Every structure is written in structure tokens, then in C-alpha cells.
């Protein structure tokens, strides 16, 4: 392996670094310049309580993961025999309830804002898939409680999953498999989707208001009113 070494040399300003690393860095900075990644100003129309529910969802996810990590530290049996563990499990439960509630409100808000407009379809898609992944993650959590509830839910849920062939590979009666899905695979997917979703929001910006339409306004086929890529890529 060879290296292009020039002692004491520093790339002069305006000269682009070569190689894959340089290309990735330039692409990342181009897509997410610091003032776009962490802006200290937002469009003036970002002034409603509905905008709070996105960040509340993120905050609740952080608490869900944090309380889940404490439960993971002590193992799946701990919270059944320790009052401290029982309380940590309750924290996990209520943070999940808050997370799902905030996410559903956020989702409805974005639906009524038609937030997929202006090449923001992938932002909607990553959010919708993240919601679906959250339902799956919560479900596997209920399956791995090791109590009557998990016995009942798993024996009931097996029929739906088996009926379409999923149960052959995703066995809800297998505690070990469900625990791995709950604490490794699905959280990884959910966090990955969340990061992707947030980066898309930062990349595209917050969707602008729907233009007001009044009776007689926006005649059919008016290119000024109807043109544009409502769906489109990210």
C-alpha cells in the first residue's frame, strides 16, 4: 500500500481533497451545511403547537431507549423480583405510551399539513415506516414481559402471523427470538429510520403552508396552481 506523503503540506484553500473520503465529506457538507443541520432560524410559518409533537416524539424515544437500556443492564427477569426494577419497567411502559401518543398526533398533524409536498415524499415514507416499526417494537416488548399478558398475547398473535406464513420465521412463542428482535433488530431499524427522517426534514426544510384556495380560485389545469411535484423523491 502506498501513501501520498508530503511532509508539512496542508491542502490549500479551494483545492478539493481526493478519494472516496473527500467525496463523501463534500457530499455531506453540501447536503447538510452546519446552518442547515442545526439552524437557529425557522420560517415564520413554523408557529403552532403541532410542531412540538415531532420533537416530543424524539424526546420520548430517547426516554424509551434509556429506560430499556437500564432493563437490559439487569436482564429480563430483574423487574419481576425487584421493586426498583418494577418501577423502571413502569418508566419504560409509560414512556412508550407517551412516545406512541406523540407520534400519532405528529403523524395526523403532518397528514393535515400534506407535509409530503415539495419533494418531501420520502420524509413522509420514512416517518410512516418508523411508525410501523414502532408498532412492531412495542408488540415484541409485550411478548417478552414473561407474564400472563405475554402468554396470552403470544398465543393469540401466533394465529395471525402463521396464517400468512410469517409465523414460520418470526415465532412469537419463542421468547429468545422475540427478545432479540425487541432489544436489537427493531430498535436498530427504528433509530436508523428516525435519523434518516430527521435528516430529510433538515435537508428539505419544514413544509410551507398550503396555499389558500377560495371559490373560483385555482382554475383546473392552471399551471401556477397545479404544477409541481407533490410526491417525488427525497
Amino acid at each position, binding site marked *: 500500500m502506498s501513501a501520498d506523503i508530503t511532509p508539512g503540506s496542508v491542502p490549500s484553500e479551494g483545492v478539493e481533497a481526493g478519494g472516496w473520503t473527500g467525496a463523501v465529506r463534500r457530499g455531506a457538507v453540501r447536503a447538510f451545511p452546519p446552518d442547515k443541520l*442545526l439552524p437557529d*432560524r*425557522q420560517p*415564520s410559518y413554523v*408557529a403552532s403547537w403541532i410542531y*412540538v409533537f415531532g*420533537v416530543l416524539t*424524539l*424526546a*420520548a424515544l*430517547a*426516554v424509551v431507549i434509556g*429506560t430499556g437500556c437500564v432493563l437490559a443492564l439487569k436482564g429480563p427477569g430483574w423487574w419481576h423480583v425487584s421493586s426498583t426494577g*418494577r418501577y423502571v419497567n413502569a418508566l*419504560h*411502559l*409509560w414512556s412508550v*405510551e*407517551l412516545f*406512541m401518543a406523540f407520534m400519532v398526533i405528529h403523524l395526523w398533524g403532518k*397528514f*393535515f399539513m*400534506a407535509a*409530503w409536498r*415539495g419533494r*418531501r*415524499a420520502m420524509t413522509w*415514507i420514512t416517518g410512516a*415506516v418508523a411508525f410501523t416499526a414502532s*408498532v412492531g417494537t*412495542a408488540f415484541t416488548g409485550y411478548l417478552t414481559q414473561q*407474564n400472563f*399478558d405475554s*402468554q*396470552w398475547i*403470544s*398465543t393469540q398473535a401466533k*394465529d395471525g402471523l*402463521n396464517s*400468512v*406464513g*410469517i409465523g*414460520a420465521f418470526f*415465532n412469537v412463542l*419463542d*421468547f*429468545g*427470538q422475540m427478545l432479540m428482535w425487541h432489544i436489537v433488530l427493531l430498535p436498530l431499524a427504528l433509530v436508523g429510520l428516525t435519523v434518516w427522517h430527521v435528516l430529510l426534514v433538515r435537508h428539505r*426544510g419544514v*413544509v*410551507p*403552508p*398550503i*396555499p389558500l384556495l377560495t371559490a373560483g380560485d*385555482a*382554475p383546473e389545469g392552471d399551471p401556477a*396552481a*397545479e404544477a409541481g411535484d*407533490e*410526491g417525488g423523491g427525497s
Partner: protein
Amino acid sequence: MTPPWARIPQPEAAPAETRSYDLVKEFVIALVAVLVLTLAGAAVFGAPDDKPVTLAAWAKADPNDFTATALSELDGSSDTAGYGAPYNTAAPGQKIGPVGLQKAAGVRHPVDTAKDFVLAPLANAPQTPDVAAALAQYQSATPDQQAAWDKAYSDALTAANDDPALVLPDTGGPVPVLLKQLLAQASSGSLDGALLSQGGFYQSDYTKPLLFLADGGYLSGRADAKHLSGDQWGMMNETGNYPGQAWLWLYTFWYQISPFNHSDNADALIWGLMAVLTLGFILIPFIPGVRSIPRYVPVYRLIWRDHYRRQLER
């Protein structure tokens, strides 16, 4: 007028006006608020933790139901014995129209209910001479003879209202001796371990003991008392007065209405329907009509009311 299926006009490329907005401060405040709500919710409401049902508890609490279920595992009439894939080939499985995904996925978790739930646990435990002889007699008999004993004992048990004590001792050949011993092993707690330890020392797969439990009436009876049955909105509920998985309401809803609540293919049909609805939900931006709904519901006017007011003032 704009047709309902038309796209909502594309917003302007860049906002003309901006305002100060501290994203990090907003996140920190949100995190503190969520922590406070979570700490309070956990402190006030706690979390449910109903102890799991064991085979021992079942055998002690309802020995007749246990014995009837064990017999159904032995004679192949239990739900699991007649389930089909992924446990066995006893049934074709559910279908969506002509498509049978259940059967196509194959038998991935094979279960032989007579062997796994009754005969093997008896054979793997030290037995008295009369039980050992009954087990040897049953296992060396022809399938027809086994079926004849099973049926004789099943008929007698049904006539006795599932009470083994009322069945004549010589009915069903060795079957009553086997089932009585299995009940004794279950009551002592050894059957819980026996069903779980069929694959080695370390265990994490509860498929077999859960299937055996679910075949009986004791587990479902307890669930029914806790309002967890399928016709009570089932598994989206939680034991006690807890919110449970409220987000499963749509999935659970279909089980409450026709034709799903009386269809033999209800599970497959509902999963198929939910797959289509989920795909539609994810792809809303591309579905004409659905993507235009927000324009006709004035929620957006409420969300951006300040913006529109400023626009009108100009």
C-alpha cells in the same frame, strides 16, 4: 373548480420570512417534560405484572380441563394437533383467495402433540411399574388400537362431564393410567420443565408449553375474565386498567365485524387487508384523492392561521 384528485399546489421554494427558533433548547425542554410525565405516570399508575400461568397451576386449579386437554393432545383432536403449518401437516391452513401462504411457508416448528406433550414427558420421567407397563402397552400398540383406546376414554370422559374420577378404571386400556400420571407430574411442577427441556440445557423457546397451555380452557378462561378475548378487542388490551397497545385498534377492529368474525380464513384475510392498508398509508403522497384530503379539511387553516392572517394583512 379544482378536481378533488388534483395535486395540492407546490409550496414556494424558500420562505421569505424567518424567525428565531432554538431547536436544541426545544429538544431539552421536551426531554425534561417527557421525563417528568414518565416519572409521574410510573409513580402514580405503575405497571401490570400478572404472574404467568404454569402447567402446575393449571393442573391444580382445573385438573379436569388439564386431563381433557392432555387426552386431546394424545388422540390428535386438540387445536395444535389439527393446526397445520408451521407445526404439522394436519390442515391446509388459511388462505387469501386461492393463495395459501401458511402452507407454503412449511412446517418450521414441528410438533407431535401425542409424543411431545404426553408420551415423551412420561417416558423421560422415572415411573412406577404400572405406569411403565401402561406406557409400554400404549406405545407398542397399533395406531388403530391406540385410536380405539383414545376414543373409548374420550367418550367416557365426555359422558362423565370431563371428570376422570367418574370414569370406570378399565375404560380406554392404558390411557387413564397415563393421563393420571401426567396430571400428577404437571401438579408437581415437573411437566413445565419437561416440555421446555426437550432441546437441551439452555432454553429460550416456549413454543411447546405455550401451545399446550393454549389448547386448554384454563388460559383462555383467565383471559376472558380479564377482558382479553378476541371478541373483547383481544390483545390490544392490557391486564388491569392499563391502556395496552391502543395503536392496534384497527387490526383488532376487523375481528369484531362480519365477514371476519365468522370466517375460517379471518386471520389471513385481516393480515392481507392490513398489509394493503399499511402500504397505502406509507404511499399516501402518491395516491390521488387521498393525498388531496388535507386541502378539503380546514385543519391546515388552524395550524397556519397566523401565516394566513399576515398574508391577508399584506
